[in-house]
């Protein structure tokens, strides 16, 4: 018996059912059918132009092979269905360590779409850009107050971009002193962007081993800092969630030897309102507005990575800088020492707007309270599972706690398996196998967003999984069982990469 779709009946059920409805949406290219359109344009109110004449026939393309041809409702359904295959903060706890997945207030989406802001053009006359310039100026001032630094640039598009900007600033500063030096020191616990950044900025990277307490080892630092060292990049609290207690001494040591201290501010959610890097002796640092200041992560950006600096670095900041004279704001491009631009225009402005809205909503005290709650939540989880998972460093945790899978790996269960099993319990996993100094790390950052109720469910899930690891490891090793997509074969993806869709050979 034939089916309307042409498939034999037997096959049918596979084609649509997959646990529940809307789970079998094809790629948009597979949905396309000749001549369908979903777009609208007003009729042209000027004479049409012959493209071949205007551009020269050789410059005019034929049709874009394979490009989608679908109707509006198919578009709505396609992306709506795909969206249901995704986990998100809006659906529950998202404890990715080091990512600060906090709630993204909807207000900020509304604010960023206000007419006059969302449609501002970077080249519109400054007399007609006072509002958008004011937003930058106010945000800069709040961020320098929060970090305890002298000045802030909002140009970097994300944290790693901020790191690059920061290291280039240090380089320019040192050069102005006569020697840019050649080495950047980085603790072995650091995030991958740190060494990658140093290299991009033309520095050699030397790793500093952490001590048994998960902190920078002063001795090895002492030994490492010679006059080839331009800077140390330190994350504080570090990636093990521990505050670097010697940070002030570290700064002093570096400064003694003509080096600078760069701080990766990705973990500022542990410090805002409680302590200021500027007071630690930090010379340059970046912030991740999409972490600490809650701009939506959007599946992986856009973010913003403002860089805050001490006054001796200020002359080197990217052009342009905002200046105020008699209540009027203007851009100053005349900065002979500037490292130049790190991005066109004024950074991810729409993200800056959201971050400012977040700061205004919290106010100074509210920001500090968020910090307190974030640290409380992390410690509550730590306490909740400390008997079930191995804690490699017992130093006090700040905004996140890092465990290891050493207990579970006795039964062949690794951190990656535990993570997948968490999915079956309805949670997004923690960060897996980072930082590198912890073998089989479970890096858990709940943020202030979570209520005790959600934390308890999460703790229960981890306890339950710990028990499963002992009693029924296969349950964990085969997880997730409850999702549309079962365990994904990442090795296969890398072996023979398929990164774009291609029409089936038979041209169907």
């Amino acid at each position, binding site marked *: 018996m034939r089916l309307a779709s042409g498939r034999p009946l037997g096959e049918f059920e596979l084609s649509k059912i997959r646990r529940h409805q809307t789970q079998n949406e094809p790629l948009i290219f597979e949905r396309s059918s000749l001549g369908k359109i979903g777009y609208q344009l007003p009729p042209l109110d000027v004479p049409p132009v012959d493209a071949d004449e205007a551009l*020269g026939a050789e410059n005019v393309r034929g049709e874009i092979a394979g490009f989608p041809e679908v109707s509006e409702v198919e578009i709505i359904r396609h992306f709506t269905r795909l969206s249901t295959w995704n986990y998100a903060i809006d659906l529950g706890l998202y404890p990715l360590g080091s990512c600060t997945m906090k709630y993204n207030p909807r207000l900020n989406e509304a604010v960023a779409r206000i007419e006059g802001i969302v*449609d501002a053009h970077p080249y519109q006359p400054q007399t007609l850009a006072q509002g958008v310039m004011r937003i930058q100026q106010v945000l800069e001032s709040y961020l320098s107050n929060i970090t305890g630094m002298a000045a802030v640039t909002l140009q970097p598009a994300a944290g790693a971009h901020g790191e690059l900007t920061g290291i280039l600033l240090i380089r320019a500063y040192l050069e102005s002193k006569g020697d840019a030096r050649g080495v950047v020191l980085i603790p072995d616990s650091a995030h991958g962007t740190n060494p990658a950044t140093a290299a991009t900025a033309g520095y050699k990277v030397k790793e500093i081993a952490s001590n048994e307490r998960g902190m920078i080892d002063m001795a090895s630092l002492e030994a490492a800092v010679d006059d080839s060292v331009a800077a140390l990049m330190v994350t504080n609290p570090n990636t093990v969630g521990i505050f670097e207690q010697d940070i002030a001494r570290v700064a002093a040591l570096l400064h003694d030897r003509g080096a600078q201290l760069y701080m990766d501010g990705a973990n500022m959610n542990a410090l805002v309102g409680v302590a200021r890097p500027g007071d630690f002796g930090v010379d340059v640092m970046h912030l991740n507005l999409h972490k600490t200041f809650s701009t939506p992560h*959007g599946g992986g950006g856009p973010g913003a990575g403002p860089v805050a600096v001490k006054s001796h670095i200020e002359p080197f900041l990217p052009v342009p800088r905002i200046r105020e004279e008699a209540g009027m704001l203007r851009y100053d491009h005349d900065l002979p020492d500037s*490292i130049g631009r790190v991005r066109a225009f004024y950074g991810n402005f729409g993200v800056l707007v959201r971050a400012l809205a977040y700061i205004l909503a919290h106010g100074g005290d509210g920001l500090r309270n968020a910090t307190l709650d974030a640290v409380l939540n992390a410690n509550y989880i730590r306490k909740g599972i400390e008997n079930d998972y191995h804690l490699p460093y017992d130093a006090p945790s700040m905004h996140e706690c890092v465990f290891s899978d050493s207990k579970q790996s006795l039964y062949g269960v690794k951190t990656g398996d535990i993570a997948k099993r968490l999915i079956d319990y309805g949670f997004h996993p923690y960060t897996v196998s980072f930082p590198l100094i912890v073998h089989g790390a479970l890096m858990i950052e709940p943020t202030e967003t979570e209520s005790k109720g959600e934390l308890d469910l999460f703790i229960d899930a981890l306890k339950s999984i710990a028990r499963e690891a002992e009693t029924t490891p296969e349950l964990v090793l085969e997880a997730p069982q409850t999702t549309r997509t079962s365990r994904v074969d990442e090795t296969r993806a890398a072996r023979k990469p*398929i990164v774009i869709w291609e029409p089936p050979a038979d041209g169907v």
Partner: protein
Amino acid sequence: MLAALGIESIEDLFASIPECLRYRQRLAIPNGRSEYEILDYFRARAEEGAKGYASFLGAGVYRHFRPVVIDALATRGEFLTSYTPYQAEISQGVLTTIFEFQTMVAQLTGMETANASMYDGSTAVPEAGMMAARITRRGRLLAARSLHPEYRQVLNTYYRHQDLPIETVRYDRDSGQIDLTDLESKLSDEVAAVIVQSPNFFGLIDKTREAAELAHRYGALLLVIFSEAAALGILEPTAEADIVAGELQSFAHPTSYGGPCVGVLATKKKYIRQMPGRLVGQTVDADGNRAFCLTLATREQHIRRAKATSNICTNQALVALMATVYMTVFGKQGLRELAEQNLAKARYLADAIRANAGSLVFSGPFFNEFVVRPGLGDSARVNDAALEKNVIGGLELGRLYPELDGALLVCATEVNRREEMDSYAACFGSSSRRI
């Protein structure tokens, strides 16, 4: 919860921060405000802007119609509030859309592969340049002077401290396109890549094919850059290009004062392992169903650390999603019609300005932007006259190109109405009267 932790106050949890490093004052930030006050605050800022003005600014950031469905879909919490899809099993939504994004970018640019996005066009260029250097193991770059000036500034910032000297290639004073003789004179077997933008900053379709031929003759790669994606709907892609990098803001995001945008980087399959940034690849799950995941992570900072192809981590996923929706809405036919409308509008405006004594500075074929010199009065006068009519004129080029002082870079897209264009064109005449 305090009880569970056996502490009196949350403050106790901060004991590990040395007393001397604690911040004992209150932040100099006013008390929290309600959402209604915050909306008022930003509405007030908006009033200090250019609400309700017509505009002929482009120069790297373009005003285009944005289908309502883009925001309707991109604001769904499942997309808006998720992060980089590290956990493939519960991130197939984002992974699938990125795979579609990569595919559409490749289709548009005529390349074989594309990544998951870069920050923007200006940062995609240096990344592409470093990639070319890795591929060719060479250390010089040639960049056309008609590459967006702010892109060139970023390029300089990135390369200043690497041994990647950049030389600028002149543009032909008549055509406004790259000066091929100058290019050839600067080419050598030390050159890793030649960077040409098309449409270039002056809005002109540039000589990418000729540039490719020259570059390849010297074993250098050709990097084709674009900042106005709308042109891709009608412009023949440069098959000879080795890397295509550019900006997709036109397809996704409002001008938003220049950001967020979404950079793209596309290339030949053979260079895939040299690409910067995230890549989504196709695979299967344990049940044999098609699935997607992040792949070739060995290129990236979290695995390769100092040896990574780039330090990029967070990219522009949500804007890439918006672009994916946009490209899907317009599709095959729509992108073509969109490009044709831009073509027609810009020509109408150019003619109208000519009719008002303005003259085109360059003879090369332009897409939706062109450089024009007022016949009477100077560019400032023209734009002042326009502002009085709530029209924001083209970009005055003097600051960026001293040799073009007094000239304007004028852009017209499908959003510019005929009356707006007539009204602005008239300023080229009217302003004269005021001399």
